[in-house]
């Protein structure tokens, strides 16, 4: 049985015409990294809000490790920790005290919490800043402190909201490494993100949400496989073309779908198109070039690719994330 269970969850906020979360069900196994992906307003934050006892569900059920979030919110709070996107650190006390008081709230004995705070501060590269107040910390430093704080009471499930949005590349890799270590230690992670790259890099499974519904749920590889064609072929030409060329390309063997992309005439590619293929891309280059030549266009760029999570997302929701 999953450590996180969500069954037919519905949340409608007062005075709202639509459900923010509209019948969502999923389970997360212990030790799994689960990514919840979706644009702003998709219902991710509300779903996590219900699981973390900050949002009361309208109907449906949600539980952490068998403890129901509505029946026993205090019991649920013992099992989880939350790392928000924006810092909510206690600014009146040092970061070490932030860790220690958090542990005290959760009943960790004094000696244990002191030792654990020092250990985590070291592990997160914060030992030399341990007596500083969080006021002037950078986004990356705050993020590290908040993850360290979350681990002080050894939660079973850790919720992270956009864990590396706005961090520089080094800080981002550092956080990713720490999160992978946590997964290896058996902590269940639920991250909400609208960063495809992050979701694909960290998650064992990804749920894609939009308009309050869970549209797809699978491993990142599975999601990408599910997309029509595993490979793509991108073609560009220097002259604009009409719809008949797209039709001609779609008629080629192995082409499952044709997507017109935004060309940029100043770069010399007034026409740009992406073909989603069932098989290998290379054998199609020659027939595609021939189809272009028939329309009087010269091929000036060819790119091979495999479907990304972003392609899956756009295919499901019909819109780009950023």
């Amino acid at each position, binding site marked *: 049985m999953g450590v996180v269970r969500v069954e037919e969850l519905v949340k409608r906020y007062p005075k709202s015409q639509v459900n923010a979360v509209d019948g969502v069900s999923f389970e997360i196994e*212990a030790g799994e990294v689960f990514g919840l992906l979706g644009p702003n307003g998709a219902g991710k934050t509300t779903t996590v809000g219900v699981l973390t006892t900050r949002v*009361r569900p309208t109907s449906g059920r949600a539980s952490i490790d068998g403890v129901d979030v509505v029946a026993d919110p205090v019991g649920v709070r013992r099992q989880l920790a939350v790392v928000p996107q924006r810092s909510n650190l206690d600014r009146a006390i040092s970061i070490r005290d932030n860790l220690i008081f958090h542990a005290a709230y959760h*009943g960790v004995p004094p000696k244990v919490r002191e030792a654990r705070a020092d250990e985590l501060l070291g592990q997160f590269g914060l030992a030399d800043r341990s007596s500083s107040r969080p006021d002037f910390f950078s986004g990356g430093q705050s993020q590290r402190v908040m993850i360290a704080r979350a681990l002080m009471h050894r939660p079973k499930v850790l919720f992270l909201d956009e864990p590396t949005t706005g961090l520089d590349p080094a800080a981002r890799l550092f956080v990713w490494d720490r999160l992978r270590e946590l997964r290896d230690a058996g902590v269940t992670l639920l991250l909400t993100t609208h960063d495809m790259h992050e979701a694909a890099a960290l998650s064992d499974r990804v749920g894609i949400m939009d308009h309050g519904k869970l549209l797809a749920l699978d491993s990142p590889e599975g999601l990408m496989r599910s997309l029509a064609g595993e490979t793509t072929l991108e073609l560009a030409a220097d002259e604009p073309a009409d719809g008949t060329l797209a039709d001609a390309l779609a008629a080629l063997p192995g082409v499952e779908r044709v997507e017109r992309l935004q060309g940029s005439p100043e770069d010399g590619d007034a026409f740009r198109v992406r073909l989603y293929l069932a098989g290998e891309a290379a054998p199609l280059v020659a027939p595609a070039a021939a189809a272009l030549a028939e329309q009087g266009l010269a091929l000036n760029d060819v790119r091979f690719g495999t479907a990304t999570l972003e392609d899956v997302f756009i295919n499901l929701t019909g819109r780009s994330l950023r």
Partner: protein
Amino acid sequence: MTAASIPLESGSRAGAFLAVLHRDLYVTWKELPAFLAQVILQPLFLLFVFGKVLGSLGYTQHGYADLLFPGLLGLTVVLTSIQALAFPLVAEFGWTREIEDRLLAPMPTSYVAAEKILFAMLRAFGATLIMIPIGYAILGHIPWQWRNTGWFVAALVLGALVGAGLGLLIGTLVQPQRINIVFSLVFTPLLFTGCTQYPWPSLARLRWFQVITAGNPMTYVSEMMRGALTPSVPHIQPWICLVVALGAIALLLTVGVRGFYRRAID
């Protein structure tokens, strides 16, 4: 290590409550000079100017300081309690979001609100009790009736609760960007209509103002203090003050706690 083998710390609800209270007291202790400046300066100057300076210059009658002092205790206990609750709450719900870590602590949401109330009361007690030696230092003596100590304590507790109720109300209803204007609009009228500087019965000559002051819950705290410390000055009967103050507290806390829940849980 698997998830099942991760030892789970299970703190008690009371333990979480006390840990949060400990944090608040720890911060107050670390910032003691700032706390003292914040709570003492205003009543100190009021006492000095109205009780000492004006009296020495002959602009106030002999005995005015005795009448003012209990009122200032009422003022201090109510205003300190409001400030200790409203200011941090507006910030914590508004922009620092510091309260989130407490709301996720293993205790009911009502405990988080209760801790805020208790802490505001403790600060208010501290600030008010400090006024006693300060009163001695400035005035040379203070009015005090040992036999009325019970009423003094009652006034102290009720005043702190009135302030906590008002603070909770302001702290959960006011948007962060409006906090400055709300404080001007609420504090100044509260300060001058709370019968701090004059006993309520003496306002009979100014009937309309007497009616206004009757609507300020602080009036009943000041009058109760007066009943305890300077019973010879005409004042509202302490038991009337008690009943009205309890009613005001019940109303303020009911609305305030509801507001707290609304902000804490969607």
